[in-house]
């Protein structure tokens, strides 16, 4: 700070002596330059909302804001007219997210898939910014806890314990808003899965490493195209598991964000969509889905976030 004060002093002295008889233009130019050096401007709206499609984006819910999220996936498009191209089936996740501070949000939810409860934190470790602090990326850490409550067939021995029903995901999100329209993020992820017998995926790996990549491109002020892909390291990928690819559109209308998408995954928690996807895009195992987000300002904040 003393350095800046000194700089400002020099600037003022120069202004005072050199442009004494002129108008206020130079003085203002100097003030503006000084302010740009003194302030940190944080990048905002890297993504429209806190999810890209199924997975987390680098965005956090603002402090004091409660976000009610309803995620919905229908059945497979290739299931034919009898199944109304998948619309007869529905799987959902109902969740609440809340912003505690500008760097911390929490979320809880319940999914139809494996009757799973989940809870997560999203912690912003670095925030993309320019000015005094010049930071090219935003870095977030997301731990996710999920609890599978699916009833097992009576013959299952031994019965799954609490630990068997629990899965953990540790994810880093490295994101950057390259331009107003284009943002990209990478999501290295480690998943420790639950150990509840799974009929659709009988052979599985308990520990999976995956690298995710996701991006968005705005096509108008209120509409953007999103894509999300998770690549499981082959050594840690279950034999029937496929990598999840989702393509979607975000539509923003006031306090709502609607996300419409096509994906090959049914699950909506990290463990489920990253490691337990079995559908293949090339076989037409594609599901239509949507997320609806509605934010409520629980606490009015007057300060900066």
């Amino acid at each position, binding site marked *: 700070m003393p350095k800046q004060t000194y700089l400002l002093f020099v600037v003022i002295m120069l202004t005072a002596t050199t442009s004494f008889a002129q108008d206020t233009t130079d003085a*203002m130019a100097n003030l503006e330059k000084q302010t740009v050096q003194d302030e940190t401007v944080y990048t905002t709206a890297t993504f429209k909302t806190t999810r890209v499609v199924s997975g987390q984006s680098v965005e956090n819910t603002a402090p004091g804001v409660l976000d009610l999220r309803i995620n919905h996936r229908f059945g497979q498009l290739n299931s034919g007219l009898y199944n109304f191209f998948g619309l007869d089936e529905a799987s959902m996740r109902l969740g609440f997210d809340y912003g505690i501070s500008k760097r911390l949000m929490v979320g809880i939810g319940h999914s139809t898939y494996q009757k799973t409860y989940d809870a997560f934190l999203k912690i912003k470790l670095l925030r993309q910014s320019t000015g005094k602090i010049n930071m090219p990326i935003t870095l977030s850490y997301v731990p996710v806890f999920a609890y599978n409550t699916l009833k097992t067939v009576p013959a299952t021995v031994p019965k799954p314990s609490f630990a068997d029903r629990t899965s953990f995901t540790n994810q880093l999100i490295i994101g950057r808003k390259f331009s107003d329209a284009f943002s990209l993020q990478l999501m290295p992820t480690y998943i420790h899965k639950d150990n509840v017998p799974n009929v659709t995926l009988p052979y599985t790996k308990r520990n999976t490493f995956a690298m995710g990549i996701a991006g968005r491109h705005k096509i108008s002020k209120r509409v953007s195209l999103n894509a999300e892909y998770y690549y499981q390291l082959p050594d840690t990928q279950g034999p029937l598991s496929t990598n999840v690819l989702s393509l979607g559109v975000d539509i923003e209308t006031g306090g709502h964000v609607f996300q419409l998408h096509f994906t090959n995954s049914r699950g909506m928690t990290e463990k489920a969509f990253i490691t337990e996807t079995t559908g293949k895009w090339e076989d037409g195992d594609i599901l239509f889905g949507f997320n609806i987000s509605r934010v409520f300002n629980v606490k009015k904040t007057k300060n900066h976030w």
Partner: protein
Amino acid sequence: MRSPLTQQPIRKKYFTKNGLISFFSKAQLENIKADNNQVLSTIDVGTGGIQFSVLINGFHFPKATMEEHFNEDYMESSKYPKATFKGKITDLSKVDFTKDGVYKVNVSGDLTMHGITKPNFSTDGTITIKDGKISANSKFMIELKDYNIKIPKVVASNIAEKIEITVVCSYPNKM
């Protein structure tokens, strides 16, 4: 120009980095107010030159989503980061900077925001001198369509077409 007592030039220019500009939108469904208390302003008491510069993303709203929409959708602050006014007090002779008082003045100049400049923008304000300290106040209306700020129909009852702007600046710093 020399002051007889100190043999120093008379300081004629003042500035602030903490001026306040607020705006208020009164619409059918909701009233929206936002403040920016990091307004840069300079005033030259010799010539009447007065200038303001304000960063759009420095306006703070009671709701985070409002602030995001304001920057992203309406003001496009990454494309047009600041709003400026550069003008003059047209009736400077009314103001006696050496005497405490509230002086009504007219200010005229170029008002620029959202990439559009309105030349000869004119409004009334007051210059207040108290204990030798200068402050400037003004309240005026602007129309969004003059600055090509488009409000979609769906939120037409949430955002007014005419916005009231309040300016409160005191100039503690000499230059």
